[in-house]
């Protein structure tokens, strides 16, 4: 409050309605003051920018061979060095960022739509809850990476198949989180009021329940992005993800394994990029959780 307002005037100002600000604007402002969130956002932005700007900042084709320039250490001509085929690691790592972001965003989109739909339906319509949640629990009972590996074994080793596999692995986890919010919200008085006012199921879910279930979902999705990128890299590294020479970070690291003593940069650089992505997203997620969903702070 500005100091020049007299005490007597406070009563007047308080009697007036304070300017109402949109809750999202309040949250955004608090996020931008959250150190962890801002640091995480900055780290993530580096990778995201590299992915978006790939065609401009990495002019060489990531799969272009150059047998005269194999195993070049990082230098001005080759910022990240070259690999055993003389391919530019600068290009490969940047296009790898593009693939990682594509996979992360796709898996997050699958979870945000299908996971929310399943979780909301299961939490809201009691009749289907039991059956849906048993299947959900069964899918969650599988160790995550093993299930992803088994699904890619079945579907095939392309980027699209990996996205489907990660979608199947992680959507049940998202559905469970949405369901638990919906179960609590469904019993709220304002929802009963909406029912009494004659609102239909669809309207109640969309207007009254889901907007209030968003906070834990957003927090979950930011961590999910990190898991998706990490799991995809793991699958590629094991050789069960996208087939070489697709420049995923996991593939680059798997290629570099043979030469790790003489050319450690082939492993170190994509690994560092992967770590920055996951670290950034984890910090971002922590920040989101602190601001949007303080109750969850206790659990983690």
């Amino acid at each position: 409050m500005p100091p020049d307002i007299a005490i007597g005037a406070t009563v007047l100002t308080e009697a007036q309605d304070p300017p109402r600000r949109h809750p999202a604007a309040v949250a955004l402002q608090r996020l931008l003051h959250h150190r962890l969130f801002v640091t995480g956002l900055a780290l993530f932005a580096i990778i995201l920018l590299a992915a978006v700007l790939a065609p401009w900042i990495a002019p060489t084709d990531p799969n272009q061979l150059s047998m005269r320039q194999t195993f070049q250490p990082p230098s001005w001509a080759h910022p990240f060095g070259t690999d055993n085929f003389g391919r530019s690691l600068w290009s490969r790592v940047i296009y790898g960022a593009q693939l990682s972001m594509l996979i992360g965003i796709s898996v997050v989109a699958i979870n945000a739509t299908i996971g929310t739909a399943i979780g909301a339906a299961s939490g809201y319509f009691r009749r289907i809850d039991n059956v849906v949640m048993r299947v959900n629990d069964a899918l969650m009972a599988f160790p995550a990476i093993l299930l992803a590996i088994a699904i890619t074994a079945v579907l095939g080793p392309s980027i699209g198949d990996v996205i489907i596999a990660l979608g199947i692995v992680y959507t049940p986890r998202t559905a469970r989180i949405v369901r638990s919010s919906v179960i609590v919200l469904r019993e709220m008085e304002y929802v009963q009021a909406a029912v009494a006012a004659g609102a239909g199921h669809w309207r109640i879910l969309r207007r009254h329940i889901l907007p209030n279930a968003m906070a834990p979902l957003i927090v979950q999705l930011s961590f999910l992005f990190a898991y998706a990128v990490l799991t995809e890299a793991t699958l590629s590294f094991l050789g069960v993800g996208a087939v070489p020479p697709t420049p995923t970070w996991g593939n680059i690291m798997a290629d570099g394994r043979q030469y790790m003593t003489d050319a450690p940069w082939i492993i170190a650089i994509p690994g560092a990029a992967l770590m920055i992505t996951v670290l950034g997203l984890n910090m971002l997620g922590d920040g989101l959780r602190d601001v949007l969903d303080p109750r969850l702070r206790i659990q983690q």
Partner: protein
Amino acid sequence: MILVLIRRLGSAIPILLIVTLITFGMIHMIPGDPAAAIAGITATPDQIAQIRHNLGLDKPLASQLVHWYANLLHGDLGTSLLLGQPVLYAVAVRLPVTIGLSAYALVITLILGLASGIIAALKQNTWIDQAAMVFAMFGISVPNFYLGLLMIIVFAVDLGWVPTGGYVAFADDPWGWFVCMTLPAISLALLLIGLLARITRSTMLEVLRQDYIRTARAKGLPQRKIVIKHALSNALIPIVTVIGIIVSLLISGSVVTETLFSIPGMGQLLTQAVLNRDYPMVQGGLLILTALLVLVNIGVDVLYAFLDPRVRYDAA
């Protein structure tokens, strides 16, 4: 407690039923002709027909399903196409290796994760707390195979302290086992240390705020006694519930760790099976590990009921 056990076993049955059903269905999710996919592109039609017959894929789906469950109840998970051994036998040979590695990593996790979480909570908002939480944040963010590769380069290649990989059975040479399993166990544990440290810290902070801690302090108990007897024993209860998650992550993590360090465990077995389209092995291995995980979770719940009487009363 018996009641909790019965209840949890009861709720595990539908889950295991669906898990087996999903595993059964996997081979039918293969696009096109599964038998042709398994046989590979060089196979003759006769070979494909042979595989189709061997796997029972030529029978109607319902009879395949009955057959699958009948065999499961006999402990028959089929024969590995790659190894020519029964799946159950191959798993029985490899599983102890993975359990040994996971147990070693779990011990490291419990010691370092709990210790750093407790210390961070007691020194809240000091540099010790911040250092521990930065470490934990890195722990949950460093991919375990990246850490493993870096450790191989430093400790195995440059310093030569340990072998770059390989496996010695504990029964043959306990010290040798220890030497070759230390790097894998650390790279497997780091994520879990970070996870456990973060959970332990927040749980401890929550408990330290309780009235009974203030009471204990007010009546002049020494700090050590308050921490161990009053705070920790109560903080441990919620921490126990995450052990199920930790074991799940250990199993997932061991897949890549074993491949990286050439340890002949379940992870390596399954990766090889996937790469060679050995579907019976993939199905059997996945099923056994998942069933094991379900059992661990039941054990955790029973332990939880044992530690926290409130859960027991709720169940009764």
